[in-house]
């Protein structure tokens, strides 16, 4: 199964991410986001961060999850590639995220993702699919 597909947008970039369940779709959305930012294949799994997020509802959780990962990139320069979701509910999730610090000699940055947006954001429980548009 495809982990994610990009959505064309005039100024920005979006994605649909899929999974066998919602936690996997959330993990694939994060993987897709980092695929927009950089060549994920060049990232090694040497650092782990436990990322805990909560929100008022499942859509808010997706928004918060992706934006929390962007925060780690801004503050710690961490590029993630692997996302093990340990706990998952409608309003709270915990994940171990693995990746490494950005190294300009090995990592090619493709896009600056400013933020995940709420515009047409969707969590489809039946299809285990999520959709999000990023501000580039």
């Amino acid at each position, binding site marked *: 199964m495809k982990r994610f597909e990009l959505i064309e947008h005039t100024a920005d970039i979006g994605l649909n991410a899929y999974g066998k369940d919602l936690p996997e779709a959330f993990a694939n959305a994060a993987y897709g986001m980092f695929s927009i930012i950089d060549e994920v294949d060049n990232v090694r799994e040497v650092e782990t961060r436990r990322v805990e997020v909560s929100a008022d509802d499942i859509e808010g959780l997706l928004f918060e999850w992706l934006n929390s990962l962007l*925060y780690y990139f*801004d503050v710690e320069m961490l590029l993630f590639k692997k996302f093990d979701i340990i706990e998952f509910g409608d309003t709270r999730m915990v994940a171990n995220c693995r990746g490494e610090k950005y190294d300009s000699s090995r990592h090619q940055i493709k896009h600056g993702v400013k*933020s995940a947006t709420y515009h047409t954001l969707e969590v489809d429980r039946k299809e285990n699919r999520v959709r999000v548009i990023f*501000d580039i």
Partner: protein
Amino acid sequence: MPGWSGQLEKIDEYRWRIPKSAKAGMRVDGLIYADEKMLHQILEDKATEQVANVAFLPGIVGYSMAMPDIHWGYGFAIGGVAATRVSDGVISPGGVGFDINCGVRLMRTNLTVEEVRPHLNKLADAIFNDVPSGLGSKGNIKLNSREMEEVLIKGSRWAVNNGYGRKEDLLTTEEKGEIPGADPDRVSARAKERGNPQLGTLGSGNHFLEVAYIDEIYEPEIAQVMGLDHVGQVVLYVHCGSRGLGYQVADDYIKEMIRAMQKYGIEVPDRQLACAPVTSPEGQAYLGAMRCAANYAWANRQCITHWVREAFCRVMEMGEAKAGLELVYDVTHNIAKIEEHEVEGKKVKLCVHRKGATRAFPAGHPDVPPQYAKIGQPILIPGDMGRFSYVLVGTEQAMKETFGSTCHGAGRLQSRSAAKRNISGREVLEALDAKGITVRAGSLSGLAEEASESYKDVNDVVGVVQGAGISNKVARTRPIAVIKG
């Protein structure tokens, strides 16, 4: 991608109305500024739907407007202008966007393109090396928490006080680079953390530094007041915003507003338009935080200005006095401002959201700097990196019609992936080189996405705002060196 198939009425050559009846819930009509040719393209994506959605905002007055550079955004269309009554209307962080106070500034020099061209490669290298750009770049400035607070309150003045630039720069910056009402306590620790390492960095995407020259002057007397004297004169542009600090402020308050909407019983068709009454605690908190991000962005452009001046003078082997490098003006194109405007014959306090739109105040307006009192506020419209940019001035007509607003750039025409399918970064580089434009860029693929073909022709965009009377053309510039993150 489904476009707009709803109602649309032609008002005149440059104005198109989306009647309230087009979508149940619209409180006012929508108004798109475009000519017939541009309109066809505008209707192809979701931008028009977004103009209609913005018309749902409680307290909106006049029209939900879109400038001719309009394109599909998130929540608001890019190129959107919406004014709401402060008394009973709302403020929406989505109407400002994530890059709060993304904006442009223009410096003039005393040099001609013939004098600068032989040094262009060295100049582009020097600017590219001196100004941290691209993702993953860290700034040269370290701030403790007290200093960060000062940046958020004082904006450009903090930068000038710390040796970045000249006191006079403040006079020709919108809001003097220091919008009042900034409240650092309303900015989350996370936002401050994100902003700390990034002060004095350009960022990536469509942000750029550009060396250009004046290619045409339309209003010599007005241009003269701005120090834009002659065709061939070299000028410099800086385009960037509030970096991670602004993005985090937007994130934080969109979440806050979603909660507030339930509390105040507000419904909007897109969660990205989440909003709260301007006068509510949530609305006031966002205003206080947004103004901090705006001040951070002004400090950011001010620091970058200083390094660009240093690089320019070093390469050209001359002092700043000889080089000139005066700041003509600095405008913001992502912001919400509390302003007084006439609505149905009465002066009313409004919250004017400009999302990818520029303020365009006329001559004589108290917020226009004294040196421009007779000509009106300078407006800077960067085009794409291969063609032109424009300097305009605001008009009375803009004051009457658009709450003193106009377009902000060329506006995107095609998606990033479509751009990359059509042209490679290498080809863009070669095409620009053939036009005599030197480029330094952090990423080649990023360059492909910013190719001229991805943007509308800024000549058409400016033609519409001029034709509609909401701005006047003063001068046009052509790039000779572009530095991108």
